[in-house]
C-alpha cells in the first residue's frame, strides 16, 4: 500500500508540476496562456501571488486547482491554492474560492460550456472568497472570465483531458482587512489521472 501511495504521489507531482512563464511586462506573475501550464497568478495588494504544489510533512499535498460542485450541482466551485511570492508575507498561503452560480454541471465534459462566459459578483453570477483554511474574506466586487476550455490531446499517458484558461480580478473586504486581487490569470490542465475534481462524473471527451 505504501509503495502504491508513493507511486501515486510521484505521478501526482509529475503531472502537477507547473510551468511558470512570466508575463513579459508584469514579470512577477505568469503570462496569460492556454497551454495547460498548471498555474494561476495575480497581484494581491501589489504582491505577486501564484498557485503552488507544496506538501506538508504531516502528509498530503496541496492541489493548485480543485474543481467541484455543491450537493445539488447548481454551483461549480473552483479553488486556486497558492502562496504570496514576495515581501514580508512571502510563503503565506492564500486560497481563492470561486463559486459559479446556476450552472448545473454534472460531468467533466460539460466544462466546455463555460467557454467565453464571464461570471460577475455584481451580477450575482459569482461568489468569491479569499483566505487560508482557517479564515476567509468574502469578495464584494470582481469577476472571473473563462476564456478558453478545450480538449487537451497532449496528455503524456495518452488520456484526454481539458485545458481551462482565463482571467480574474477581485476586491474583498471584511472587518477592516482588504484584499485587492488584480491582473489574475489561470491556465490549468484538468486531466482524469488525479483527483483535481470532486462530485463530477468523468466521461472522457469523444
Amino acid at each position: 500500500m505504501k509503495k502504491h501511495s508513493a507511486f501515486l504521489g510521484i505521478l501526482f507531482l509529475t503531472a502537477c508540476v507547473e510551468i511558470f512563464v512570466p508575463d513579459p511586462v508584469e514579470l512577477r506573475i505568469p503570462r496569460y496562456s492556454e497551454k495547460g501550464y498548471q498555474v494561476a497568478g495575480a497581484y494581491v495588494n501589489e504582491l505577486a501571488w501564484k498557485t503552488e504544489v507544496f506538501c506538508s510533512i504531516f502528509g498530503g499535498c496541496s492541489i493548485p486547482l480543485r474543481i467541484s460542485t455543491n450537493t445539488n450541482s447548481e454551483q461549480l466551485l473552483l479553488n486556486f491554492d497558492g502562496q504570496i511570492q514576495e515581501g514580508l508575507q512571502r510563503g503565506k498561503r492564500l486560497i481563492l474560492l470561486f463559486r459559479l452560480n446556476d450552472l448545473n454541471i454534472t460531468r467533466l465534459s460539460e466544462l466546455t460550456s463555460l467557454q467565453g462566459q464571464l461570471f460577475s459578483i455584481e451580477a450575482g453570477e459569482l461568489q468569491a472568497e479569499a483566505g487560508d483554511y482557517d479564515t476567509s474574506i468574502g469578495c464584494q466586487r470582481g469577476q472571473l472570465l473563462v476564456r478558453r476550455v478545450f480538449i487537451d490531446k497532449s496528455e503524456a499517458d495518452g488520456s484526454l483531458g481539458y485545458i481551462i484558461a482565463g482571467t480574474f480580478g477581485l476586491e474583498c473586504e471584511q472587518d477592516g482587512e482588504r484584499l485587492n486581487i488584480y491582473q489574475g490569470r489561470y491556465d490549468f490542465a484538468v486531466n482524469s489521472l488525479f483527483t483535481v475534481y470532486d462530485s463530477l462524473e468523468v466521461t472522457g471527451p469523444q
Partner: protein
Amino acid sequence: MPILLLLLLLPISLQAQSLRGGIAFSDIYSAPFISPHQYQLQPVVGLHFKLRTLQDTLWILEYEIGFQEKGYATQQDVAGQRQDYQLNFLYFYQQVMVSRQLSPLLDAYGGLGINVLLWPTLRTASDTIRMRDTYSSVDLSIIAGLRLFPASRLSMDFRASSSIFPVLRYEVFDDFGNPAGSKRGIRHLTLEATLMLNIYKNRKTMFR
C-alpha cells in the same frame, strides 16, 4: 542547441575567412510599456565569409553566421524594494552584407540579418526562467558598420543593428481581467565592438 547548430554548420564553418568575437551593448526601443530599461553587455561570436566581388573589387558581398545574445535590464518595485531583472535572448544569426572599401584602412558595410531565437530567459537574483512561447522566433534586422584595418591580420569591427519588426505581441488586460486589446513592441538595438581574426591578410573572396 548552439553546439548542434555548429556541428551542422561545420562544413561551411571550415570555409570561414575570419573569426569575429566581442561585446555588444544591447537594449530595446519602441517598448513604452517596459519602463525603465537599460542596456546590457552581451557576447557575440561569429564566422565571416567574403563571398565575391561586385562589379569592381571595391565592393564585396559578405556573409556571416554566429551567435549573439541580445536583451535588456529592467527593475520593478517589490514591497518598497527595487528588484532587478535581466531579459536575455540568445540568437543564432545569419547576415548578408555588402561592403565598400573607403580607404585601405577602412571598410563600410550594410546589410540584413535573420536572427533565430534559441533561448529567451529571465534572470533574477535567485532564478533563471525560460520565457517560452512569448517572443517572435525570428527577428529580422538591418545592420550597418565600419571595419578598421580590414586587410591586416586583426581588424576592428563596429556594427549597429536594429530589429525591423517588433518581437513581442502582448495581450493587455485591465485589473479585473477584461481583455484590453493587444500591443506590439520591443525592437532590439545593438552596438557591437568586436575583433576580427582574418585568415587572409587581403580582401580575398571565396568566389570571383
